[in-house]
């Protein structure tokens, strides 16, 4: 039983990935909340923290459900621009 539960936890954790994506154009804190909102509404995103000061989004996601490319698309759809090389 313990083995099964442990295995389940390890499996779930194995699918969770964290990525930091640089976002260009987030000059106003009042409008960058749209990035957080759009990311959190995306299926497979477990958590998203967006900082307009740092100009980046730190996203925890299930890599079985979506890709980093899709996350970049979501950011771009909010009017800002995901920059930098994927996988960094």
């Amino acid at each position, binding site marked *: 039983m313990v083995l099964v539960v442990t295995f389940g936890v390890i499996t779930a954790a194995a699918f969770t990935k964290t990525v930091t994506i640089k976002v260009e154009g987030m000059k106003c804190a009042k*409008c960058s909340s749209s990035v957080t909102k759009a990311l959190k509404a995306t299926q497979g995103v477990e958590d998203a923290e967006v900082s307009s000061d740092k100009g980046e989004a730190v996203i925890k996601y299930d890599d079985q459900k979506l890709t980093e490319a899709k996350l970049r698309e979501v950011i771009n759809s909010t009017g800002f621009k995901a920059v930098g090389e994927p996988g960094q």
Partner: protein
Amino acid sequence: MTLLGIALAATVIALSPARVSAQEVKAPRFELKDLNGRRVRLSDYQGKVVLINFWATWCPPCRAEMPDLVRLQRRHGKEGLQIIGITYPPESREQVRRFARSLKVNYPIILGTRELKARFSSDETLPLTVVIDRNGKVSEIISGILLREEFDEKIKPLLMKNVEGGIRSAK
């Protein structure tokens, strides 16, 4: 009533305005001119589901969502949806006019004031969309970009209702 009861009642009264504000409050009235000099009053749209979209040309998410708003107005206008865009200084009339023209905006755009936005919500986020039902009551305040899921969940049901709250018959 016990002391605890009084304390609880006082807490509920103190908290209630924030909780009910989006459900109970009649939308503040205004009368302003749009970019074409036409007078726009909220009461002109009585019986419609009105989305007041506060935006700015310098706000990337505002610019990104505007083509979607144009599409929503086109698609749901016949069902009684009316979008009104409100921006405010430092935007200049000419700057806003040029931008609205480039996107072929099909709903009134008003050059208002920051104070007008504050009458609807203290939330300083942009874009900010105030949803007003057919009875002129504020039904939702949507902070940030309007997502499709939010439209389906919070606005579509209002379009399906008539002023009395019944289901509108399809024509």
